[in-house]
């Protein structure tokens, strides 16, 4: 790595040094000029320094980033073209392996196995070296250019602070836009791959097909022949059983989490003293802080065997990857989610409603059941919707504890699979981006994203309605 990194580090250090130097020069210049012309400069001296160093740094950083995305792929593709010439008969997949080997040889990790590879590695190394030189020179030129442009403009009349602040404000705006860019990135990447998937598999087959077995559909030969018999020549990418499994697990999770979470929230918000509340609430929050992989571990290696043994004891056949174990443990994970959201919602119900109910002679319980909960209802629905969205999108618990085979069943004792499990299964292991198998993961991801988005929007609308009611 040291061969690869050191020119970068040197360039980086030089750039930083140039920025400091220009800061120093610019503040010196404006100080001298102000004294010479007996005027007071518009901004504090440091702003002139910032102004010039920004002109040195920002173009250089932009250039370096562009270089990274433009030059490195160019180097690689040139090296690949040379490799194609050197090994004309090699199939594509071997060529990629050879390329990876070549990069490692050029970086000095491994020794070249033969003369051809050694020569190619030498060529690649030379190309990298000349590209590095070219980059250093271009960077230096850009920095000098920026420096002289800005440095010549430095004078006591220059409104350096205003210029610096305008730059900062734009930078701040760009940072805020990162959130939008992330959303766009998610939608675009999912959509792009999903569209490629739907070119192979029709929308109808995907959303309404009832048979899901992507692993076998891929393989040409006997396995696929058997599968074609079941699913037709398009393969078997019907997501209905996957979705059904997801919903089953989510329903079980909610069946555990809603009663426990809601009653906890009622207790902490209506009955508990401040002292108890301050102990109970953080303790419940601990459940939310436990990483999901820990729940997955617990579900797969403790809860699932427990339910299996319990089933054997009462004479029921429980799968070792039962939906019950995965859903139940997921429910435990969601308890704090529901309890803290519901607690917030219930606390937000105005005290006047409670006082009115007490004044009419209601007991505490009646006030809660007949007045507080109905008033909080929209907010509670919002909390439940958010929890369902969380349950549907949860990955590790189901990857570790639920099954891989897509069974269409509503029996919680059987094994089902979920959308997230399928995404993980399809994308771990060999990873060619063009197979229908991997593309289908993105179609599932798209579906997951849309469903959770809709649930979140619905939750937001519901809780906003609560806010409007009592403000």
């Amino acid at each position, binding site marked *: *790595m040291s061969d690869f*990194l050191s020119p970068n580090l040197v360039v980086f250090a030089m750039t930083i040094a140039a920025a400091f130097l220009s800061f120093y020069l610019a503040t010196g210049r404006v100080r001298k000029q102000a004294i010479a012309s007996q005027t007071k400069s518009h901004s504090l001296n440091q702003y002139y320094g910032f102004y010039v160093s920004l002109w040195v740094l920002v173009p250089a950083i932009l250039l370096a980033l562009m270089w990274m995305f433009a030059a490195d792929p160019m180097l690689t593709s040139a090296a690949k073209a040379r490799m194609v010439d050197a090994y004309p008969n090699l199939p594509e997949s071997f060529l990629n392996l050879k390329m990876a080997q070549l990069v490692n040889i050029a970086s000095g990790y491994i020794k070249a196995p033969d003369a051809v590879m050694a020569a190619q590695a030498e060529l690649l190394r030379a190309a990298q070296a000349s590209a590095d030189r070219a980059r250093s020179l271009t960077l230096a030129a850009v920095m000098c250019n920026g420096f002289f442009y800005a440095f010549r403009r430095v004078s006591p009349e220059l409104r350096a*602070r205003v210029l610096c*602040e305008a730059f*900062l*404000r734009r930078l*701040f*705006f760009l*940072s*805020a836009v*990162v*959130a*939008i860019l*992330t959303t766009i*990135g*998610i939608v675009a*990447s*999912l959509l792009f791959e999903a569209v490629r998937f739907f070119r192979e598999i029709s929308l109808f087959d995907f959303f309404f097909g009832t048979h899901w077995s992507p692993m076998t559909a891929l393989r040409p030969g006997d396995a696929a022949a058997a599968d074609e018999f079941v699913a037709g020549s398009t393969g078997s990418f019907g997501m209905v059983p996957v979705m059904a499994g997801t919903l089953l697990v989510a329903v079980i999770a909610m069946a555990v989490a809603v009663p*426990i979470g809601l*009653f906890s929230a*009622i*207790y*902490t918000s*209506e*009955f508990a003293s401040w002292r108890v509340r301050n102990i109970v609430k953080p303790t*419940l929050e*601990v459940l939310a802080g436990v*990483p*999901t*992989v*820990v729940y*997955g*571990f*617990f579900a*797969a*290696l*403790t809860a699932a065997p427990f339910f299996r043994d319990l089933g054997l004891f009462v004479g029921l056949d429980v799968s070792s990857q039962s939906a019950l174990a995965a859903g139940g443990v997921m429910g435990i994970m969601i308890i704090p989610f529901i*309890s803290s959201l519901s607690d917030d919602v219930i606390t937000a119900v105005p005290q006047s409603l409670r006082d009115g109910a007490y004044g009419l002679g209601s*007991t*505490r*319980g*009646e006030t*809660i*059941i007949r007045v507080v909960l109905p008033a909080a209802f929209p907010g509670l629905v919002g909390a439940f919707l*958010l929890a369902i*969205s*969380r349950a*549907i*999108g949860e*990955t*590790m618990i189901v990857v*570790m504890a639920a099954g891989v085979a897509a069974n269409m069943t509503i029996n919680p004792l059987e094994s089902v699979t979920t959308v*997230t499990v399928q*995404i*993980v299964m399809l994308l771990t292991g060999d990873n060619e981006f063009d197979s229908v198998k991997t593309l289908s993961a993105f179609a599932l991801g798209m579906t*997951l*994203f849309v469903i959770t*988005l809709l649930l*979140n*929007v619905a939750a937001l609308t519901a809780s906003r309605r609560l806010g409007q009611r009592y403000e």
Partner: protein
Amino acid sequence: MNNPIEMIQPDAETQARFEKIAQGLKKRHAASRRLKTYGIMAIVTAISFLAILLTTIISNGYTAIQQTELQITLTIPAEKLQYDDGAIDPVKARNFNWNGLIKKAFLAEFPDVTAMLDQRALGEILSKNAGYDLRRLIEAKGSIPVGETKVWIKTSDDVDMLMKGRLDRNLDEAQRRLSNQQIGWIDSLVADDRIRLVFNDTFFTAADSREPESAGVLGATVGSVMALFVTVLLALPVAVMAAVYLEYFAPPGRVTDFIEVNINNLAAVPSIVFGLLGLAVFLGFFGMPRSAPLVGGMVLALMTLPTIIIATRASIRAVPTSIRDAALGLGASRMQAAIDHILPLAAPGILTGTIIGIAQALGETAPLIMIGMVAFIVDVPATLTDPATALPVQIYIWSDSAERAFYERSSLAIMVLLTFLITMNISAVLLRRKFEKKW
């Protein structure tokens, strides 16, 4: 008798109604108490789930803190490993058959075991990496002991499980991973005091391995630390700048609303979707290396961004407006007021929010699996682009393994992970308490 209310005598009908209310009251209060009991039961259930979770993990994992070792007497042939001046020749040391040496010495202690299959069964008591361990031991020591020496060698994971009582002796022999014969040998070794349990330092100084006794969490921990380093480096500045923009500079309007909606929605997007984003954009489009902590950190940065933005905005709002007004009144620009006056006062809150966001990111597994940090990696990563895995992913990998000993190590790795999380959260609370200002 001049109080008018007392003068009114309730008629029979009203009297009956009063009695009915009084009778019902008992029931109604009972219903109220019942509701309260349900609440207490719910909380007790939730907390006992937490207790079960923690005790299961601790009771499964605490034994992994020890490792079984076996004492072997052997003579290391110094002449095959040294230069002429007596220093160890690293090339010779690497090529020397250490495993063979250990196995031969061990077999020599059981002269009556002669059959090929029996000898193999006897050899299975030793760790498959025993030779490697011995070489490292000698290399660390720098000199080769002369003559017969006694060394402690790690046993295989099955022996380890037996010694810790995690392998049931009463099980049918066919279903047991150690045969009766092997257990007999082990018992005789125990009787000779030649088997001991010692602190399992390998677990804290090694990366992953196929053999449980040689596997450790250091590689995964370093991978996690590297990824989180990238996360903080990217997410913290962007989040703080975004928060300052939204609080002080954003003009009210559609763009600002859209940014806010996006931030809130991103906070609720399933983590695996961020993994898909990383896979498609960072790996697919930009061609970044697979399994690298750099890419993992970038994906986690996108995930934690909303958390830190929301925390930063809250702590900026907690700074009284009078501070800003005073700064503006004395002639500071809006930018100067924000950077020089508000941000330093909001810093403890920002720090707390960042620590909590990073703690969340530390526990994330799914997005890292998506970008390939789930590989089997035996080296501790040295740079941000080396293939690596992360602590939670290591737990996932181990819990998928068949060996019982990995189950135990997985639990201990969870304890390590939880220790990190608890430390981070406690330090966040302490920081908040230390620097929190009441205005």
